[in-house]
């Protein structure tokens, strides 16, 4: 099976009621690595991720993958800023994508149990997912996204609701997934996390890509005064 990357955006735009939320964005994402999208609140990080994933309608420009979209859809996954859990047990939540792909209940649940363990939910496989805490929901969403071994995984602030320890656990899982070949594209407000995970940084401002650079170079010496101010924690207008 050939790779779905690179993902190319040219002049891509997202609009709501005639107002442009994001774009025009020109961006190319190659394998391998982790792209971290950063920027102030409302800059358009969520919208950009959804646009690339295909859940936000493309209002202008083009987005293309190396393979047809119908095939790509089965190779990508998305973890939302606020995770959605199904009204089922933890195990059945994690097993759900495999069930959709036609796997038997027994096999799907066996694999789900393995993944529950990896994200630290191994002790509560039969608990109703709706009673989980925010952090546990986030871990569940991650396991549910990774169980299909997607080629590309989008994560919108995957650790926003988590304490330091859970954050590190999730980052370890993400690093492992990355090593195993999953391309990560995530947004975050945690600059420590951005430094730990990123191989490439996209700095968004007012819906546009203000700067994009290799991670080391970016954190060492950002190319624009706005990015420098953002990294210092200053308020940028």
């Amino acid at each position, binding site marked *: 099976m050939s790779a779905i990357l690179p993902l190319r955006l040219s002049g891509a735009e997202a609009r709501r009621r005639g107002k442009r939320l994001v774009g025009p964005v020109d961006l190319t994402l190659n394998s391998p690595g982790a792209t971290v999208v950063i920027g102030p609140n409302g800059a358009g990080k969520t919208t950009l991720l959804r646009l690339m994933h295909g*859940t936000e309608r493309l209002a202008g420009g083009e987005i293309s993958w190396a393979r047809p979209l119908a095939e790509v859809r089965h190779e990508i996954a998305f973890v939302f800023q606020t995770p*959605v859990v199904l009204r089922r047990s933890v195990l059945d939540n994690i097993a759900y994508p495999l069930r959709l792909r036609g796997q038997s209940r027994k096999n799907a649940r066996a694999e789900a149990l393995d993944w529950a363990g990896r994200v630290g939910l191994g002790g509560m496989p039969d608990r109703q997912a709706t009673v989980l805490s925010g952090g546990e929901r986030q871990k569940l969403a991650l396991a549910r996204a990774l169980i299909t071994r997607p080629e590309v995984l989008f994560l919108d602030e995957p650790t926003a609701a988590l304490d330091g320890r859970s954050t590190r656990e999730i980052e370890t899982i993400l690093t492992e997934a990355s090593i195993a070949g999953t391309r990560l594209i995530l947004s975050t407000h945690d600059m420590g996390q951005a430094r730990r995970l990123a191989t490439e940084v996209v700095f968004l401002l007012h819906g546009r890509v203000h700067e994009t650079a290799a991670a080391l170079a970016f954190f060492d010496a950002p190319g624009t005064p706005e990015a420098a101010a953002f990294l210092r924690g200053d308020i940028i207008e």
Partner: protein
Amino acid sequence: MLLITLDGDLLEIALRSLRVTLTALVIAGLIALPLAALLAVRRFRWRRAVIAILNAMMSLPPVVVGLVVYVILSRSGPLGALGLLFTPGAMIIAQVIIIVPLIASIAHQSLRDLWSEYHDLLISMNVTQTQKMATLLWDARRALLTAMLAGFGRAIGEVGAIMIVGGNIEHATRVLTTAIALETGKGDFALALALGFVLIALAVTINFAIHALTRTEREARW
């Protein structure tokens, strides 16, 4: 005393009530639940109209339903050749028409709420229309059970429509409600009341049984 002497006939009538209603309930569920799920997940052109019609049909007087079914099934009617009039089959048809809108409306409400919760996730997972509906129906099953119970209650207590299309024929189409109506008309209140108690007992038993079932399931999961 009364109940014991009438045992044979009473049992026959009660069982017929149950058989007719449960059959109607199963058929109505098979129509109403997928319909409700479809209305929840799909934005097709006639969606609003279908919902409006369902809601209007909920307040349809059963006697009118009975009348319409009667006309359709009567010898000169479009489906007269089936010979269904004055059989349990005709009663089942009338009950199905009466409870489908009720079950579909109640089910649609809970499925719609669940869909707004699940929407982003299921879209992102690229699920097919059928998978969407199946997921919603499964995860909302407890609420759907309530919808089905409402349908059961409505159907087992129905008298107007099934009196017209069934004809309340002894050993053929007489059920608890039509028997009660008959005995009351004849002035045999004691018998009518006894039948009434049986009817209530039946409805309550079914309700309790189903609630007990769901409770054990819930406890097993939590």
